[in-house]
């Protein structure tokens, strides 16, 4: 049984207009998205801004209104917010945010930030709490004197590790990481990514790793979903996506990544121009009425592509 199953998830917002504010249409932020994550596994959710990838993450956490579809956690239906709140789900699924500066309360000490979820869900004595916080800090590579400091005393990478420590405080099964390293410098990003992998092994965590950075995703995720226009255009293993990208959007995305080998510059440019040309000239081969994304079709045991 998968840890998390998302079935035909829809997040639609009404567009209102006219003097009486009647509904005149829908903004489809997420439209019929289906996937599952096994325990201890990492699924990468890749897309550009406005693709619906962040909204998908939010919907799973109950932070966006679910219009239709089903979310199962360890086989239990937690689509409904009342049922979600009664189940251990709220402890088992946590979030790591992109913005390391605004996601930590600047007026609270690190101890209070990390202990907050513990205080909400577990009755610990002061001493037990301090011990847990110290353990959590050491897991993310910070020393215990960090506990008495305030967020501004830390660098971006350290702040993100504090965010990770808070997220794993309740020993969750799944972490939804929304662009967790996008705001960080290369060398700092490497530290945070390593810690994310380490604690995954240690705690058997599963990640839904939301990112626009195909390099980071390639490093982190065994499975990938490429999102465009609120739907999945391609789904597969790391191998499937990077070695045989099939949908034109996936190919365009991969072709757009700058290569760090300057000798391949001309070759990359040529390929990029070719793919871009195909993207504009042959849209109807890949999109319904040139914008609609088709349903996914299996093209191998692990690889699915949205083709007509």
């Amino acid at each position, binding site marked *: 049984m998968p840890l998390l199953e998302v079935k035909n998830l829809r997040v639609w917002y009404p567009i209102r207009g006219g003097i009486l504010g009647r509904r005149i249409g829908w903004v489809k932020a997420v439209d019929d998205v289906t996937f599952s994550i096994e325990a201890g596994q990492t699924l990468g959710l890749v897309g*550009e*801004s406005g693709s619906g990838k962040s909204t998908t993450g939010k919907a799973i956490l109950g932070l966006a209104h679910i219009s239709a579809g089903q979310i199962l956690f360890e086989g239990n239906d937690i689509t409904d917010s009342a049922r979600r709140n009664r189940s251990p789900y709220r402890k088992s699924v946590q979030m790591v945010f992109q913005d390391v500066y605004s996601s930590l309360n600047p007026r609270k000490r690190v101890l209070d930030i990390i202990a907050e979820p513990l205080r909400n869900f577990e009755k610990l004595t002061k001493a037990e709490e301090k011990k847990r916080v110290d353990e959590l800090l050491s897991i993310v590579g910070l020393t215990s004197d960090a506990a008495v400091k305030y967020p501004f005393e830390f*660098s*971006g*990478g*350290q702040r993100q590790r504090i965010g990770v420590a808070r997220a794993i405080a309740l020993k969750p099964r799944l972490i939804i990481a929304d662009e967790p390293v996008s705001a960080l*410098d*290369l*060398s*700092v*990003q*490497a*530290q945070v*990514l*390593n810690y994310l*992998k380490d604690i995954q092994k240690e705690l058997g965590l599963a990640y839904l790793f939301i990112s*626009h*950075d*195909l*390099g*980071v*995703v*390639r*490093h*982190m995720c065994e499975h990938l979903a490429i999102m465009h226009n609120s739907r999945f255009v391609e789904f597969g293993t*790391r191998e499937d996506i*990077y070695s045989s990208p099939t949908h034109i959007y996936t190919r*365009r*995305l991969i*072709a*757009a*990544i*700058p*290569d*760090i*080998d*300057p*000798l391949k*510059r001309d070759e*990359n*440019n040529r390929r*990029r121009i070719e793919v*871009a040309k195909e993207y504009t000239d042959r849209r109807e081969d890949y999109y319904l009425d040139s914008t609609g994304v088709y349903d996914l079709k299996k093209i191998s045991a692990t690889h699915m592509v949205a083709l007509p």
Partner: protein
Amino acid sequence: MPKVSEALLEIKNLHTSFRIEGQYYAAVDGVDLTVFKDEVFAVVGESGCGKTAMALSMVRLHNINYTRMDGEILFHGSGSGRPQDILKLKGAELNKVRGGHIGMIFQDPLSALNPLHRIGQQIEETLVYHTDLDKERRKARAMELLENVGMTDPALTYTQFPHELSGGMRQRAMIAIAISAKPDLLIADEPTTALDVTIQAQILDLIRALKKEMKSSIILITHDLGVVAEMADRVAVMYAGQVVETAPVTELFGNPRHPYTRSLLHSIPGAAGGENRLHTIHGAVPDLRGLPRDGCRFSRRTPWMPGDAHEAVPTYHEVGPGHYVLCTCYKTFRFEE
């Protein structure tokens, strides 16, 4: 790169210091650089390395109330026979260089454009100060520029406000402003960092095409080594306010020498793609007030290296044609294992 390299901008011993609580701290701490005519010169480094502080120094955009600048920035712009030291220019002369000879492109085009002015108006503002065109010709020129930067409907964009454009279109408008007076040099400070990767590719293509057409030079400030590899002719790597390595682009990626450059290239994820741990650099970049000011500044990040690997006062060493490295530690550097 052109056969005969002719200097366009020479930075000599530049120090740019900011006042924090009454004391000045150098964010750019003794930089020497030469940018040639008709080349793309990339400056790469992580946040806090001084690359943006240096870019803004080149046309003195820092607030003079808390900034101090020393050194020389010699600009061999078109028109004047002798080079001008930008740091010594008077207000009116400086304003001739700004926008006229040196155009700037910033990271976030939404905040860099005035939200209350129409795009056309913002382009024409540059034309007012750097051309003799009358009102009608300015409008015609603005339309032409909008077309040059790839706007599908220049007449519409001309009348639009920044918030009405997408991120990529805004950056195109910003580029139109920067090139409107046909400058000799474009300084682009993280021009694609705020954009999606497919849009980034388009903007980089545009910058490349414009450069070819205008034969101007570009200083590209970025943290993204991929962008450097795609765009640059030559590269300077900055760390803690200094340039630690300068090299032609193929040399820098093919034969990086400075420990910092090598460490950075090593920590790029996805290149190998897989289960390996990423390389990390010990410690963190110190903030401006805590920057080491003596010896090899990167030595604190490589504690396993013996002290005598470094020079007491690091100097530049030529390790290949046009390839310079700061400090002697490059000779014996190994990654920690």
